């Protein structure tokens, strides 16, 4: 363990908090019992559809093809062995994370060198090529000091994936990571993201979840110095039978840090299920911090189910601000009435409202080409249900 990690570990040790929000992690798979579904962190997840990821299923699969497109200056390498694992301070906090951590044979490392400002995004595409055997992967994205970059990770095709993605945003760096789960209908993805944000660093996470049978993302951000900020934006669209789960944990481990979380989702079709858990912990040391988290769900048809649970734990009152909001609703009748009173048909009015619901979030992504793609994706999703009779 490096000296920095030791100091960080010692600091966190002193500040230990007893709470289900942050179970003690362990690298040893045996320390994580096979979940039964009654545990707080598993109670929303359809374990039966995880293809044994949470049990003993082999993770030796290699049924995927990675592709890269990066501007000059970015280092992309596949590092064999365990050397890079855990650099963000990740200690697996559930069984699937621990299994993936132990079994991933190598680490995909994307490094933006110090003081490098990229003029276009780095694209990493992971295309699944089969669901015969589950796959474990590990990735580390590191933005070195004062660098600025956007990294887009796109998941597509069919596979059963358990992965750990570690992100290190060094002091003064600005990093955006855009994760797009655009899987085929039969994919299963249980992903863990652990982010460490340095002093005065800015991290933006954009989490887009469209495809897959079961997608569960467990994302934790913590700070290694004061002044860091985290923005997390999420957009998801669950269709009939789909389970999309986002579990977020912002651990305010340093003073004067900021976090802002906005996740918006739409649900359509029988047994479409979404889960959003937004956990925030403000530790004693984290004076002067500011946090806000928000989840909004738009239920487009009957038969959908949205769970939304914001949790805020505060150990110091010396903060600039803390708040959260959660709302799950159908179309607002007044919105539709206003639009329809101008001659716009009911379907078309619904279409406008759904686009509007997502648009202010999409506009914040800051990558124009992706914003256009996403608007088109929303349109394609709408075509499955709301607009079916329009076409």
């Amino acid at each position, binding site marked *: 363990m490096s000296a920095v990690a030791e100091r960080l570990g010692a600091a966190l040790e002193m500040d230990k908090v007893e709470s289900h929000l942050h179970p003690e992690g362990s690298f040893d798979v045996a320390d994580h019992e096979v979940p039964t579904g009654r545990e707080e962190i598993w109670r929303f997840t359809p374990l039966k559809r995880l293809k044994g990821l949470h049990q003993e299923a082999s993770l030796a699969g290699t049924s995927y093809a990675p592709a890269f497109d990066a501007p000059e200056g970015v280092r992309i390498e596949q590092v064999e062995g365990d050397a890079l694992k855990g650099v963000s301070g990740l200690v697996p906090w559930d069984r699937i994370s621990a299994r993936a951590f132990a079994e991933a044979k190598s680490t995909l490392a994307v490094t933006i060198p110090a003081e490098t400002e990229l003029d276009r995004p780095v694209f990493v595409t992971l295309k699944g090529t089969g669901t015969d055997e589950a796959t474990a992967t590990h990735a580390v994205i590191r933005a070195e000091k004062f660098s600025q970059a956007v990294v887009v990770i796109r998941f597509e095709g069919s596979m059963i994936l358990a992965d750990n993605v570690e992100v290190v945003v060094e002091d003064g760096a600005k990093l955006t990571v855009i994760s797009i789960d655009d899987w085929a209908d039969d994919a299963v993805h249980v992903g863990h993201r652990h982010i460490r944000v340095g002093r005065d660093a800015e991290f933006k996470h954009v989490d887009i979840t469209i495809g897959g049978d079961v997608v569960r993302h467990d994302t934790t951000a913590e700070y290694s110095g004061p002044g860091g900020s985290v923005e997390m934006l999420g957009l998801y669209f669950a269709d009939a039978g789909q389970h999309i789960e986002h579990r977020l944990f912002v651990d305010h481990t340093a003073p004067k840090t900021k976090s802002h979380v906005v996740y918006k989702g739409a649900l359509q079709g029988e047994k479409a299920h979404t889960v959003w858990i937004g956990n925030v912990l403000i530790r004693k040391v984290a004076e002067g911090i500011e946090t806000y988290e928000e989840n909004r769900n738009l239920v487009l048809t009957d038969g959908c189910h949205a769970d939304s649970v914001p949790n805020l734990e505060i150990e110091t009152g010396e903060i600039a601000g803390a708040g959260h909001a959660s709302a799950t609703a159908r179309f607002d*009748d*007044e*919105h539709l*009435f*206003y*639009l*329809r*009173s*101008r*001659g*716009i*048909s*009911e379907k*078309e*009015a619904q279409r*406008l*409202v759904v*686009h*509007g*619901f*997502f*648009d*202010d979030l999409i506009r914040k992504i800051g990558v124009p080409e992706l914003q256009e793609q996403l608007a088109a994706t929303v349109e394609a999703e709408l075509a499955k249900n709301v607009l079916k009779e329009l076409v």
Partner: protein
Amino acid sequence: MSTLEIKDLKVQVNTEDGPKEILKGVTLTIKDGETHAIMGPNGSGKSTLAYSIAGHPRYEITGGTVTLDGEDVLEMSVDERARAGLFLAMQYPVEVPGVSVSNFLRTAKTAISGEAPKLRTWVKDVNSALDLMNLDSTFSSRSVNEGFSGGEKKRHEIAQLDLLDPKVAILDETDSGLDIDALKVVSEGVNRFRERDNKGVLLITHYTRILRYIKPDYVHVFVDGKVADEGGPELADELEANGYEKYLTAAV
């Protein structure tokens, strides 16, 4: 040629204490080229009349008829009514997050005229309509009514009236909450609409102030869900001098 004909209209709303009758038999005919003012105290049912004609789901029609050029308006959906030529300028225009004014206007125009407007002339038309309402061109990229001031919301309603060009416009307390400058701008907009051929206007107001700028042909006094008195523009002057007092005591 267009005529909005309201006959013995009865409307109720559901409240916690059960259904409550708001309109108790309203009869009113607006022929083309005519401007009718409906005046009345708070709670007399003026806005209910406006929203009932537009088809708001909160209001349940329990009797009577509304026709536009002989077509049964009450049988139409909200959007069909608008496409048939009715327009309601709302007292409290609704905020629709994330939907830009330009997208909204283009979608509405396309729905009403049955085809997408020609791009080049349309942009010009929109800018001119906004400009006439003292709304600058950045306005069209904002979300519909979101963060608009009270005056901006009303001016946006009248810009829509200009662009969507209905047969009959119902203006529900468009004058409320406007300062004198905004009131003039809005009134000029309504007057430009009236100058077009075959347009009817139903102007609902609490105050006589707006009638100095928009001269009605007929004035109807609304009390307790019914028309209590009718007359020419001189009736507005009388109301300005004496208020609604005599109608209220008569109603009790």
